[in-house]
């Protein structure tokens, strides 16, 4: 069977078709949920973040003009919601600041226990500043180009490259220290 395009589902959802909207959610919920886990380091927060993202997407669905891919637009909204979430959680910490090292929550271990690779990388990502973590997430897991990342994060392409370069050096250090 032919899969309906995102644009087709969006148009139907905009006209009030609930099933089309639910199909659109099911198409992207796993990506957004795992994005949330990697960005927040917590599956409960990831679930809350996912719900906020899809509510925000639905409210702004009429503003989606189809200039770029829906997935890129979706992750742009996810990033904004993630920043809001981050600021609510840590109001005194800037996006460029390195987060304070916290004890690993059981929920994260529970989620990541099935893969040592998952655990190692995601644990190291949690120690990156928010801005660098977002670039790593979008580049390695989202498979976006630097131009797309720059557009989604509202920064220049060179800044995105610079942040990834810095993030890689830090990730290397964190992973060496933790698993030496």
């Amino acid at each position, binding site marked *: 069977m032919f899969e309906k395009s995102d644009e087709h589902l969006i148009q139907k959802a905009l006209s009030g078709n609930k099933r089309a909207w639910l199909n659109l959610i099911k198409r992207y*919920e796993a990506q957004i949920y*795992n994005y949330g886990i990697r960005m927040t380091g917590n599956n409960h927060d990831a679930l809350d973040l996912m719900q906020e993202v899809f*509510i925000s997407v*639905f409210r702004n669905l009429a503003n989606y003009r189809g200039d770029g891919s829906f997935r890129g637009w979706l992750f742009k909204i996810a990033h904004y919601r993630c920043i809001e979430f981050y600021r609510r959680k840590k109001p005194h910490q800037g996006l460029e600041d390195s987060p304070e090292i916290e004890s690993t929550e059981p929920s994260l271990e529970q989620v990541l226990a099935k893969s040592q*690779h998952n655990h190692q*990388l995601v644990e190291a990502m949690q120690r990156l500043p928010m801005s660098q973590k977002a670039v790593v997430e979008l580049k390695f897991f989202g498979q976006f180009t*630097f131009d797309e990342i720059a557009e989604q994060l509202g920064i220049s392409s060179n800044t995105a490259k610079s942040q990834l*370069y810095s993030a890689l050096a830090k990730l290397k250090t964190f992973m060496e220290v933790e698993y030496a």
Partner: protein
Amino acid sequence: MPNLNEQQLLAAWMEGELDDQQRQAFEQRCAQDEEFAQQVQMVNSTLLKAQDYQAAEVPNWDRASTFEQGEQTKWWQWSGFPALSTALSIFAVVLVFSGFEAQVENGQLTVSFNKNRSSDVQMIVDQRLAEFQQNQQLAMNAYAQSLREQQLDASTQLTNYLLASSRQERKEDFGELIKFINEQRSEDQIFYARQLNQLQQEIFDSANAQPWSGEASLPVTNE
């Protein structure tokens, strides 16, 4: 192509956008710069880990709750209302400027445009002005009549007051005069009575002293 710095070179390699010259520069830097080589290795390692990443299953959640704003819009939220409102406003303006007029007489609807309304308006205005003028004239006459009556009443009252007051004064003056005359007469009577008594006394005294001895000289006094 311009020479790229480390960050740009790594980014171009990750995007697969290196040309031959840049590829040579990339390989040369990997061989000579250990730090850069470790960055490349880190990229490869991270890519592998990302590919091997086992995505967590999405727990069951209330997907329909995100559709809360997507309920069918109510009829009063119909998006065509603004356009309809504007169109009706324009229609109303056109009707006004075109002199549209509709009349219903004996079950017949008569619609007319461009009726010469200015002469009608002028006629109505003239009629109203004449009525206003007439009313004003009547009011002015009534006011003058009222004023005249008020003046007449005031004059009558003033005259009556003057007559009454002068009559009263005259009456009081005559009373005073009569009183004065009566007092004078009373005093005169007392004076004459005293004179007569005195005269009687003198006559009596002289008669006792020289009875019939000649002519009696009567004392004359002013008292």
